[in-house]
């Protein structure tokens, strides 16, 4: 597969990843799916406040990319951030406790769904401002370059964010300075209610890479191996001093933009159904079965374990105290 600007990668060939790695990818995607289903249900039950953006349908992107990263690498996320957290190795109980607004949450109840971060694992935070994280993670790329230890920084952002200034400013600066960056556009074809087709001059965000002289590649975001391989190439290039790449993952969110009641969703039901037919999880499951790397018993056991882990996360959240009101004034400034 070529890395030429605007290249479009073919369907992924049979992967040479070891079966344990493939099963781990499946486990992570399933964890995201089941976590999101629970978050959605608990949101509708009034246990989670404000707003939740579900990642269901897009799991192949976060897991495909993060499986190409090491613990020293850093990522930044968006308002739709639970999947990136889980794929980078965040702790489910502390995530759930944050959604529940509890003291034990990742942000001590100050962030909520749109602001989960875990700096200790290189997850520099979900960000509630569209394109707001791109400059920050580009700074992490600069930090990695200056540290000189081969670290890489990955920016996850939506198709909507690719139309905002910071995207262009940062691609230019990262290309000029050969920063060890991977820019991953999750093109789920919509920014809130607005179709990308109505707001993008070109159908492929990856085509914009040419304007910055960096590789740009369109991949099927629902094919986890295609995502993983593209990420792998981009990460290798970044690590070896070759500079940034842009990967556009075509994908789709199954649920409405947010979990809010009465959230408008103008998408055609037929389109939604068609994309559900391209489920990244079912696809990997199928592939693993074909390779005899997974059977019913293994899958059921995996699902049981994940369900138990999510139950435990919810139990932890529910048993955790709310913050004390006066803690509202803590942590405005660092010591």
């Amino acid at each position, binding site marked *: 597969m070529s890395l030429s600007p605007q290249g479009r990668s073919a369907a992924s060939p049979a992967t040479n990843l070891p079966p344990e790695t493939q099963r781990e990818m499946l486990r992570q995607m399933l964890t995201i799916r089941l976590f999101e289903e629970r978050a959605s249900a608990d949101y509708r039950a009034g246990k989670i406040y404000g707003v939740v953006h579900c990642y269901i349908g897009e799991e192949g992107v976060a897991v495909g990319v993060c499986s190409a990263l090491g613990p020293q690498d850093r990522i930044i996320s968006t308002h739709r951030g639970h999947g990136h957290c889980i794929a980078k190795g965040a702790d489910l109980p502390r995530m759930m406790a944050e959604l529940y607004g509890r003291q034990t949450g990742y942000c001590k*109840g100050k962030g909520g769904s749109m602001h989960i971060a875990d700096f200790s694992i290189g997850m520099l935070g979900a960000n509630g401002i569209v394109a707001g994280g791109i400059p*920050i993670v580009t*700074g*992490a790329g600069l930090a990695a370059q200056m540290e000189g230890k081969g670290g890489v920084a990955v920016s996850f952002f939506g198709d909507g964010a690719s139309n905002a200034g910071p995207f262009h*400013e940062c691609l*230019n600066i990262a290309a000029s300075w050969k920063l060890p960056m991977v820019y991953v556009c999750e093109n789920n074809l919509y920014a809130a209610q607005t179709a990308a087709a109505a707001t993008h001059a070109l159908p492929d965000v990856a085509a914009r890479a040419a304007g910055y002289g960096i590789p740009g590649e369109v991949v099927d975001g629902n094919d986890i191996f295609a995502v993983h391989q593209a990420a792998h190439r981009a990460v290798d290039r970044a690590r070896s001093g070759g500079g940034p790449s842009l990967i556009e993952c075509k994908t789709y969110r199954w649920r409405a933009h947010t979990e809010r009641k009465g959230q408008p969703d103008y998408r055609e039901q037929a389109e939604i159904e068609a994309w559900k037919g391209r489920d990244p999880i079912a696809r990997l499951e199928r592939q693993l079965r074909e390779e005899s790397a997974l059977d019913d018993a293994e899958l059921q056991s995996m699902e049981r374990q994940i369900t138990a882990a999510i139950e435990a996360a919810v139990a932890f959240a529910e048993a955790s105290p709310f913050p004390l009101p006066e803690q509202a004034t803590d942590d405005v*400034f660092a010591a």
Partner: protein
Amino acid sequence: MRELTYDEAAVEAVAEEMRRDPKIFYLSTDPIPPLLREFGPERIRATPIAESAMTGMGIGAAGCGFRPIVDWRQVTFCFVAMDQIVNQAAKIHYMFGGQARFPLLFRATVCGGGRVAAQHSQSPYSMFMNVAGLKMFLASTPYDIKGLIKTAIRDNNPVISFESSRLLRLKGPVPEEDYTIPLGLADIKREGSDVTVVALAWLVHEALAAAEELAKEGISVEVIDPRSLVPLDAGTIRDSVKKTGRLVIADEAGPTAGFSAEVAAVATEDGATFARLKAPVKRVCALPVPIPYSPVLENHVFPDRKRILAGIREVLREGPAQAA
């Protein structure tokens, strides 16, 4: 003691800190020549004119253990980076529950008088004072700017150094030895007993000139320079007002929801200070207009020693003292 300009003192502060700590690096669209000569292009980086990117990159690098300095140059240029300043830098430590530190110095020139019109003359610090999570200061002397910049670089939070374009070439004594000035500590630039003038930057010097003139008439003016805007040294301001009973606030920004309004509130919402006020608080500020170009217009917009003088005379005329 040797003398440095305000600008030289600021650069010397940066250079000394950079020698001390290899984690410090500098982002600006136009590197400062002596810094570039000494530290090279790896640490003194010339960025594209992309303030949003450079500001956010400073935040990201800070979160990864570096101590970046982001120099916006004219404060008006940082308005294109408002998201990174207000939504990101100010909130990121709090929003993530204090799990990471963001030691970051922003530098920005403020004030007017340069005949460069509205998009290159502004004193918008109160816009930033209004945002929780940012510390900031505005020095009036070479000595102060050096000590404050050093403190800001060592602080583990985003700190904005607002620097007066009118004072860049002002000379003053700066010791050779290492010293710092804490944030949140005002400086009494002149002691007096009849009226307190709280002033910032260039207007500190104008207030001192006004005080000198009034001294000839036997009027004793105390001039306080808060230096640090956030945190603000309310104690020193209140103690002075309790002593003099009269308060004039001089600021090159407009009055509306401004620094001057904050100082007036600091004085009047404290019962003990309020009880000692003998006259209404007087603000001497810029007119509420974008800064115009023509010298005739620009001079008319800004307060100066004459207006400070008039303000002082006004508070001396008013209130019980006048009745007595």
